[in-house]
């Protein structure tokens, strides 16, 4: 399997009047062809910002990508002009995104038809009627009924789950290599969540695309993701295959996350344990491990003024912790 996208030492900082927020501070990860990868972490850990940085969609100011590379198709796409033609060709064409808020991510004043076809008009070499047919086909594929009529409806005439289906159709419309789904199901109810994840993983394999799922819920990705990156305070603190992470989580934070999720595959009646404390304030952080104050396994070394390096354990399993 070949590597499709490789993010290296990405740093995205926000310059606010209360100080510099290091939302993403040296994150590296990669995704292979036809692979499903999950990026997991609490809200505010920089997982969404890291994905937006790949697309150069971080609002500037106050945000700024200060360091790092994103290798895609043999070049560093962070060096491209954010508004230039090459970057636009990648956005929507090669890499597409599904956002968290289906209620606000669609333009309320334009029909679904308009919003679904505009990316295809830019990226695909098809004429109007072909684009229209493809739009209908895509809507059928994501499970919207009566597509001939409904394609001319407006977003407010659809439910949240339906809108997210439309977003999925939009993301797939130009045969992208990678789809980044930023908390695609968080705003929806549980049954819809499951349906949508199932739909997404089906369609991704059908379109032979890769999928990055960003979520705060380890439970929902267990079935679909091949590999998982766990992020905390702007860094990756543990990574590995789903098996490795679920089977033998190493980092105290990952273990804490797993303890918060009800599991069906274990028999013992363990209680759900919340992680004590709250996520650190990312403004003017101390240089040592950011999980220090919440960690129950901390050792003397954790006070040292540097983050633990992400070291190799077994297979693909890496962890960034002094104590384990």
């Amino acid at each position, binding site marked *: 399997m070949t590597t499709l996208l490789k993010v290296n030492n990405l740093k995205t900082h926000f310059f606010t009047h209360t100080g510099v927020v290091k939302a993403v501070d040296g994150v590296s990860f990669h995704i292979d062809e036809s692979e499903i990868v999950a990026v997991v972490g609490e809200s505010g850990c920089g997982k969404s910002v890291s994905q937006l940085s790949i*697309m150069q*969609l971080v*609002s500037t*100011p106050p945000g700024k990508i200060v360091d790092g590379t994103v290798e895609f198709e043999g070049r560093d796409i962070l060096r491209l002009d954010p*508004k230039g033609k090459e*970057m*636009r*060709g*990648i*956005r*929507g*064409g090669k890499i*597409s*995104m599904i*956002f968290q*808020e289906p209620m*606000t*991510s*669609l*333009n*309320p*004043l*334009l029909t679904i038809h308009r919003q679904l076809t*505009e*990316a295809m008009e*830019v*990226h695909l070499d098809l004429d109007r009627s072909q684009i229209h047919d493809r739009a209908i086909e895509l809507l059928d594929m994501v499970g919207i009924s009566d597509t001939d009529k409904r394609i001319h409806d*407006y977003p*407010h*005439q659809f439910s949240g789950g339906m809108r997210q289906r439309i*977003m999925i159709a*939009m993301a797939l419309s130009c045969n992208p290599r990678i789809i980044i789904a930023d908390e695609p199901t968080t705003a929806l109810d549980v049954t819809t969540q499951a349906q949508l994840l199932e739909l997404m993983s089906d369609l991704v394999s059908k379109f032979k695309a890769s999928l990055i799922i960003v979520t705060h819920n380890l439970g929902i990705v267990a079935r679909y993701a091949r590999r998982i990156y766990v992020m905390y305070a702007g860094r990756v603190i543990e990574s590995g295959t789903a098996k490795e992470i679920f089977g033998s989580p190493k980092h105290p934070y990952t273990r804490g996350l797993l303890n918060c999720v009800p599991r069906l595959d274990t028999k013992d009646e363990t209680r759900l344990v919340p992680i004590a404390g709250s996520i650190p304030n990312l403004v003017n952080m101390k240089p040592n491990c950011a999980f220090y104050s919440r960690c129950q396994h901390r050792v003397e070394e954790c006070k040292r003024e540097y983050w633990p390096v992400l070291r190799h354990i077994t297979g693909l399993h890496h962890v960034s912790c002094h104590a384990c």
Partner: protein
Amino acid sequence: MTVYTLRKLIHTGIVLIIVSFLVFIAVRLLPGDPVLIYLNETENATPEKIAQLRTEFGLDKPIPIQYLNWVINAMQGDFGKSIYYDISAISLIAEALPVTIYLCLSALLISAVAGILAGLICAIRRGTYLDNVLTVLANLGVTIPKFWLGFLLIYLFGYQLGWLPIHGYTHPWDDFWMSVKQMIMPALSLCCFAISSTTRITRSSILEVVQQDYIRTAWAKGLAERTIVFRHVLRNGLITIVTLLGVNVRFLLGQCVVIEIVFNMPGLGRLLVESIFRQDYIALQGASLVVGLFIVLSNFIVDISYGWIDPRIRQE
């Protein structure tokens, strides 16, 4: 859309009724008996004459009946006879109205085009030198008293440079160039505030829209900036801008009172002020009703355009 239009039509009708009643009642409350003022002009006030005139004007009837009579007459274009000029009020208004429409329409057009353009440029090129300069100008523009700006322009272009006539009005069909030359300074001093406020509000509403999730979606699709601005941003900013244009109509109609006095133009505004000073209540009543009518109409158009812009409103 039909239901929406119908509902707005009913709302407009109700407001119109209240407006006409307010105009009627307010003028009735003004100090001075219209009959006495009328007689003062003709100089023979015997009690019989007063009583006779009361019946003639319908003033002996109860207020609701008087109001109804007035409305019915007004709908037929009869506002009564001007107390001061002894001609029908409607002909006074008809004479003044084109002046005001000409003035306000040019100011509205200038302010809409220039203001929206400037606001859009500021928002899209936020933080640049151009944005800063335009924003400062817009902030200054809303603070200038209109009449004072008029004097400033008169001083500069009229007295010092001698390029433009300092006051007066000519119909464009009588002498087009003279008419345009006379209109430049009034239109400019009238629309200064409107340009500035349009710029400010367009800028902030566009900045607000730019932060929305659906704009991020549009960027993520790989659309060109131009497409995003015109298809996604401007359309969503339009709701605020249209509201503002409605506000501007009201504002311009109000301020043309001052501007018409400064530049000595025989428009509706001057008629209003002069009617107050001459206690010509019939003309005052008619002129304020016409001003109200125009604004109610523009509000209705604004409401209808909301429905046209936003499908959520249209299908409510």
